[in-house]
């Protein structure tokens, strides 16, 4: 099977040639297969958000190539091959919940009736039925982030790119959102790239965890998460889960020590 995302020897330099030049990413190689859930974890400033933006073609690489669904990343962006979720829900406050979810469809000139029914369907998936006509500020942080996920899914992309989507949520809400995201991933067979700071979250959600180090940002270790595909509250209490959490923690520690 060809990889959904293929990152080939990618480096990224910010402000090249200037005094504040920064090597943000150095020679990154990573293939992500269809159906995988890959979390990227690392200390602040290791370039994990930059890596995600390279996949989404929101910024260009300085060298190397990024392929999405076998196409160059810019083409994949034009083809709407991925849905993106940011740390801030980034909902437009002048739009209702439903209208926010419809936004990507609107930009593709999908007819109104279909837009509405697909938005309803997606809101049902994230358990927000009945909130269609609410405005973003009437929802809690967790609910806003669920709307953002519904918006990312509404184009039915094969690939989901998520940049610390639950970073601003409290621990309890975060665990509930993890469960919901896991369920959606399990049901829809999407490929996901997930940036996070949280070891527990990374292990719970992923099939693979990519550990990065800082200055320059590079991949130091890739850990396979060999937990069963289906995960729920009990998963967090299994011995294997704890072992994997410790494994990732040690990998992170080594990455931070620059080993």
């Amino acid at each position: 099977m060809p990889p959904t995302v293929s990152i080939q020897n990618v480096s990224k330099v910010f402000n090249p040639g200037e005094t504040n030049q920064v090597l943000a990413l150095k020679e990154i190689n990573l293939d992500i297969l269809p159906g995988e859930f890959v979390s990227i974890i690392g200390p602040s400033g290791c370039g994990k958000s930059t890596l995600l933006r390279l996949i989404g073609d929101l910024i260009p690489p300085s060298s190397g190539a990024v392929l999405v669904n076998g196409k160059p990343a810019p083409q994949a962006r034009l083809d709407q091959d991925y849905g993106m979720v940011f740390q801030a829900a980034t909902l437009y406050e002048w739009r209702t919940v439903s209208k926010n979810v419809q936004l990507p469809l609107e930009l593709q000139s999908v007819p109104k009736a279909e837009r509405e029914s697909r938005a309803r369907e997606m809101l049902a998936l994230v358990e927000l039925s009945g909130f269609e006509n609410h405005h973003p500020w009437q929802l809690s942080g967790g609910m806003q982030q669920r709307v953002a996920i519904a918006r990312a899914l509404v184009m039915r992309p094969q690939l989901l790119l998520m940049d610390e989507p639950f970073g601003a949520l409290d621990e309890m809400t975060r665990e509930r959102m993890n469960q919901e995201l896991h369920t959606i991933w399990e049901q829809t067979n999407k490929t996901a790239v997930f940036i996070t700071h949280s070891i527990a979250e990374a292990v719970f959600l992923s099939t693979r965890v990519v550990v990065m180090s800082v200055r320059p940002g590079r991949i130091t270790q890739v850990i396979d998460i060999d937990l069963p595909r289906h995960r729920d509250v009990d998963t967090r209490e299994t011995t294997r889960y704890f072992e994997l959490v410790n494994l990732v923690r040690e990998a992170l520690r080594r990455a931070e020590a620059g080993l």
Partner: protein
Amino acid sequence: MSETLTLPAPIITEKQGRFSRWWHGRSRFARQTISLIVILLLLAFAWEGLKFIGGDPWRPANNPFGIEHNPPFRFKIASDLNLPHLWKIFEAFGRESRRNGPPLIQVLAGAAVFTFREAFLGFAIGGLLGFSLGAIFAHSRVLERGFMPYVVASQTVPILAIAPMVIIWLKAGWLSVAIIAAYLTFFPVTINTLRGLRSVEGTAVELMHSYAASTWTMMWKLRFPAALPLIFTALKISATASVVGAIIGELPSGIRDGLGGAILNFNSYYISGPERLWATILITAFVGIFFYLLVSLVEYLILRNRRRPE
């Protein structure tokens, strides 16, 4: 899954007095109306109070209370010529403005409508011009750097110097007055449009990029709606400025039908009837307030869904 939102009840503690409890029991509209009236009464009280302490003598025939009173001081500012009694001003509305003419209120109402139409046209032209400049500058730093100095300079040139030229170019009339009003109104709209269109958060823009949105789509689906609150702030400033602009524009145009003409006219007869100029000033202020409220109403209708509960 039901997270509903309830607004917190007003906090009422034992310490609060009876007035405070009564006050907070009123609706917001009632509170606003009451404070409006109270402040108006206080201003009227201060006005007449000053005249009571230091104005010209009060004669029984000349005041509605029929009192004879000799103020202890004589302040120049509080004389009947400089600061006519409020009832004199209101009386003047009902009296004919010139011999055998219609009552002053009718003349002023006609003038107010006339000036408002000029101001509205100027506001529309200025608003559109201001928005266009702001939108162009928001998309091109080169044009912004090149033209902004002239836009700023245009506002430092007194309108009184510009107005006669506009009249020479366009001939005295409706349009020239509207252009002069527009000249006074476009600037705040340009500045706030530019600021508003550029104020959009980074991720909101990235989201649009992820949809491969064009600059045009980005403008109308994201930047423009995001800028609206700031644009309305500017439009409220412009609404009042356009009334001033229209009045100033009428003066060198020789247009006598508007409030500018009325101000000029009653200014020259000030000695024989100061209350007529004051009445005109009241009406002028009213036109400005009316226009401001009109824009505020449109703003409310468009932005009401954005309000976050306090």
